[in-house]
């Protein structure tokens, strides 16, 4: 089998599996998986910057929340339908990503981490400050009627699952295509050695800015979809833990792999889910597992798989 055939088979097969699971999973796991697919889309967006371009951001909650609030405010105050609201969320996250990128990319390394973290904190505080409209910590609850497209009720498990799968498939296929295209190779070159890429004549700043905008857009789209599918838009999603989550999911799954973000999100979700059914000290269990994985699988689950077995994984 050629490399391309294997890649198509694996990634296509995964999508087919996710479609099939819709009909097989019991209700509880069915709901979980819908949530995981949306969060994994968030992680995929994060991975574009961190895994492929080597930009470690600590402020991705800002993009997630930008999409979520762009969507939520449009529904709440402009009476927008779900599709228009989703597009509004998308537009807001593009603008936010562009502005953050233009400013934050003037720094690198630790400076970049701090600047992105500060932007995200500023975003979080802004949401709390305008509490009259955003409802601050309490958040906005979207009614069933506001989450219906034609006869599709996104608050129902079936349509919600498929909407989550559609979002995931879009993010998944966009990154798969991107990292195999010349553009993605340049991003990897920048990650591997930025100065060298510049010395070969690539405008590194423009490529990094493009990576930030693509990443921010995918994350914003996920945030908008999350609000729409689960009917809640809240300031928690702009807080620092939602900047750390995608980093953890990507690290666990395998930075710089296309399926890593899904694997990492799935793993961490069920790690917490299963351990909390056993003990109230579930965060301790999660912590120990994370430490062990970092020690013994530093490249993440899929990263180790690539290093040992499937060398062709994109």
């Amino acid at each position, binding site marked *: 089998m050629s490399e391309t055939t294997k890649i198509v088979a694996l990634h296509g097969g995964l999508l087919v599996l996710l479609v099939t699971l819709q009909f097989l999973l019991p209700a509880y796991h069915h709901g979980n998986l819908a949530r995981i697919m949306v969060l994994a889309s968030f992680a995929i967006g994060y991975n574009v910057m961190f895994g492929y371009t080597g930009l470690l951001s600590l402020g991705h909650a800002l993009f997630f929340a930008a999409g979520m609030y762009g969507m939520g405010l449009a529904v709440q105050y402009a009476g927008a339908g779900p599709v228009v609201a989703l597009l509004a969320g998308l537009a807001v996250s593009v603008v936010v990503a562009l502005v953050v990128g233009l400013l934050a990319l003037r720094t690198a390394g630790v400076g970049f981490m701090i600047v992105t973290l500060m932007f995200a904190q500023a975003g979080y505080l802004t949401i709390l400050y305008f509490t009259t409209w955003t409802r601050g910590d309490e958040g906005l609850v979207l009614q069933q009627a506001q989450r219906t497209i034609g006869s599709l009720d996104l608050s129902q498990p079936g349509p919600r699952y498929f909407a989550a799968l559609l979002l995931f498939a879009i993010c998944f296929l966009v990154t798969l295509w991107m990292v195999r295209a010349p553009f993605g190779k*340049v991003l990897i070159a920048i990650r591997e050695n930025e100065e060298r890429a*510049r010395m070969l004549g690539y405008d590194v700043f423009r490529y990094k800015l493009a990576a930030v905008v693509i990443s921010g857009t995918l994350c914003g789209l996920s945030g908008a979809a999350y609000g729409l599918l689960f009917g809640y838009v809240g300031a928690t999603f702009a807080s620092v833990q939602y900047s750390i989550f995608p980093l953890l999911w990507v690290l666990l799954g395998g930075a710089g792999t296309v399926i890593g973000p899904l694997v990492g999100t799935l793993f961490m979700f069920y790690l917490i889910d299963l351990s909390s059914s056993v003990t109230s000290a579930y965060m301790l269990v999660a912590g120990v597992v994370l430490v062990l994985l970092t020690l013994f699988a530093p490249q993440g689950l899929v990263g180790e798989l690539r290093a040992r077995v499937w060398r062709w994984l994109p």
Partner: protein
Amino acid sequence: MLELDKINAGYGRAQILRDLSLTVAPGEILCLLGRNGAGKTTTMKAIMGLLPLMSGTVRLAGAEISALPAHKVAGRGIGYIPQGRRLFGELTVAQNLEIGLRAGASGPEVLEDALQLFPRLRERLAQRAQTLSGGEQQMLATARALCLQPRILLLDEPTEGLQPSMIAAIRDVTTLMRDRGVGILLVEQGVDAVLSVADRVAFIENGRNLETLEAEALRRDPRLISKHLGV
């Protein structure tokens, strides 16, 4: 023709290069000789726009390039292969070359030419760059720079730490590029390595020019070298 006209440059407030002037003509190999810390690598970085000039200009074929951002300097046709090679380790040999080709907007015939110069690379196209031997990595770094079809090549200690057969292979390609009309600025530590390929030798000390001599004169009278290097 690459011209450095009285350039001053350094890192922050530490000035390294002082009124340094050099010219590299098409089809010649100019070697920089100087002790450690004399400013050889700094000179190359200054040419590439990696260090801001305090004063002076760098011109390529008469056009000033010292005001350009770093990535545009390469686009004008200067290939720089820094010390220590610096490949994109996670990418394969083929992908490393592809990145070079795209940067130079070069066609497949350029790749074919580079692979003919380094047949070893053709056997290793699908291999990850970080798994190559030191000599093969140097070949790849050189081939990637050639994919840009440069008019000027800057080579910083290309044969450092390589086995003799690899040194010979790199040297053959260097002289071949010279014969094709590429201007080459070369830094080497070993005097023998310099004398075997150089057309002219520029001595520098503390970031200043000393003399620039024909290599032929040095080959005839090696005492000139110890006089200038002070060793």
